[in-house]
């Protein structure tokens, strides 16, 4: 351990996330992990961390913390005003947070979730092999509260301040047909792709809930519970599709019409309630 972060304000929801808890879905444990993976990977790379290092996922900004030793930090994800020791700083690059200095995140200008990586990673005790907090069943470290003290690991590489982040290119969520596409009317997937949906208020780390045209089902019976994957587009009886995200239950009882390509899932982390969402068939699918 090489120091502590003292959290003064955790904002609306701040959790610790690493790559998630693999291999336990059959016991009912969600995988968790950052919702915007490319942003989390970039933040770790900027401060010289391994991509598996644990960092903070900050929802709607509002995080304020200090370091007792001084530490390299990087903020990525939703574009957010970043203040380091009283001075405005950019995001998407490594910054030195001096001992006693405060890092403060404002409210995101666009998007929802920001990522704060510190050199050495957040070194809280792992639970079942991961430092990710799952918000469905609360497996993992507790959510970050005001007043929390977070241990920081020992840095093992210098920060990498020059980087080429992925260009943010939001667009339609590309999908392939799901395993239960045959539970829906002919052409239901094409109509899903032609329609426009709106992000619902209830969206969270479990799923992106959409309002819009309900896909037409041809089989009305209940689906016996079956395993679910990240990005599955489930259609509950009400007809409003849900894109399953990192904290989704490992099994579910609603048919899956489509599956969102994993390269597009980061967008689901940054869409706000009320934002429009479209789907498009992945070429060749």
């Amino acid at each position, binding site marked *: 351990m090489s120091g502590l972060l003292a959290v003064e304000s955790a904002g609306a929801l701040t959790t610790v996330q690493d790559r998630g808890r693999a291999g336990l879905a059959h016991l009912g*444990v969600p995988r968790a992990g950052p919702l915007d993976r490319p942003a989390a990977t970039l933040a770790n790379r900027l401060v010289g961390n391994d991509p598996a290092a644990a960092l903070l996922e900050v929802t709607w900004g509002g995080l304020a913390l200090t370091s007792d030793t001084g530490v390299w930090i990087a903020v990525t994800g939703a574009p957010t005003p970043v203040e380091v020791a009283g001075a405005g700083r950019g995001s998407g690059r490594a910054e030195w947070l001096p001992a006693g200095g405060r890092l403060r995140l404002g409210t995101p200008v666009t998007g929802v979730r920001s990522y704060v990586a510190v050199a050495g990673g957040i070194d809280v005790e792992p639970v079942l092999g991961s430092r990710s907090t799952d918000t469905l069943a609360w497996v993992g470290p507790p959510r970050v509260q005001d007043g929390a003290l977070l241990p920081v690991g020992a840095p093992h590489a210098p920060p990498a301040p020059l980087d080429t982040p992925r260009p943010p290119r939001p667009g339609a969520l590309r999908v392939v047909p799901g395993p239960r596409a045959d539970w829906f009317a002919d052409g239901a997937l094409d109509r899903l792709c032609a329609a426009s949906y709106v992000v619902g208020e209830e969206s969270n780390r479990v799923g992106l809930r959409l309002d819009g045209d309900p896909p037409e089902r041809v089989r009305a019976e209940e689906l*016996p*519970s079956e395993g*679910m*994957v990240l990005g*599955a587009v489930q259609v509950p009886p009400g007809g409003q599709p849900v894109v399953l995200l990192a904290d989704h239950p490992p099994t579910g009882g609603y048919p899956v019409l489509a599956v969102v*390509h*994993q390269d597009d899932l980061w967008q689901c982390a940054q869409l706000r309630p009320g934002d429009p969402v479209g789907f498009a068939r992945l070429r060749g699918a």
Partner: protein
Amino acid sequence: MDVLDLRAFGPAAVLAEVADSAAARSLAAYARAARVDAEEVVPGARTVLFDGVRDVDGLARRLADWTPDGGPERGPLVEVPVVYDGADLHDVAARWGTDVDGVVARHGEIEFVSAFCGFAPGFAYLAGLPEEHAVPRLDTPRGRVPAGSVGLAGSWCGVYPTASPGGWRLLGRTELTLWDPARYDPALLAPGTRVRFVPV
């Protein structure tokens, strides 16, 4: 239906549909023993999901060697001591056409087997209740069901590992810890585990 109906579930997952829950357990156990190339092997009510698969065709070839195992369940046996004082005990007795002692006796006679986990970490769907003893879920779920509550829904039996809202009809409660992330096997009733309820 073929013994095994494989459906793509996105580019890196395969959903194998089989005849019933026993076949799903058998396939999941076979796949784990064969160490197939999948990050997750998740049995469902009559499916097995293979997620995090790098070579979908290779997996399909491995699974083609599986035949449903009609033999007895071979998982470890866990005895669950139960105090039968659940809020729905009399209701279940009426539905089964017996009294409370009759429910306790019939529930205790059955060797259940954990078919799959879902709903919450360590919440096992226990198969074994005869179809004629199936009971519907509560119309209005309870806001809070204490940890250790033993209940029925449809032809499934389950034990709540943690306190949560729930709509299962409650027969009683156990002191056993069903879910403990600090334990080597965090879920007491992992899929394949045989379960007997013992009145105390």
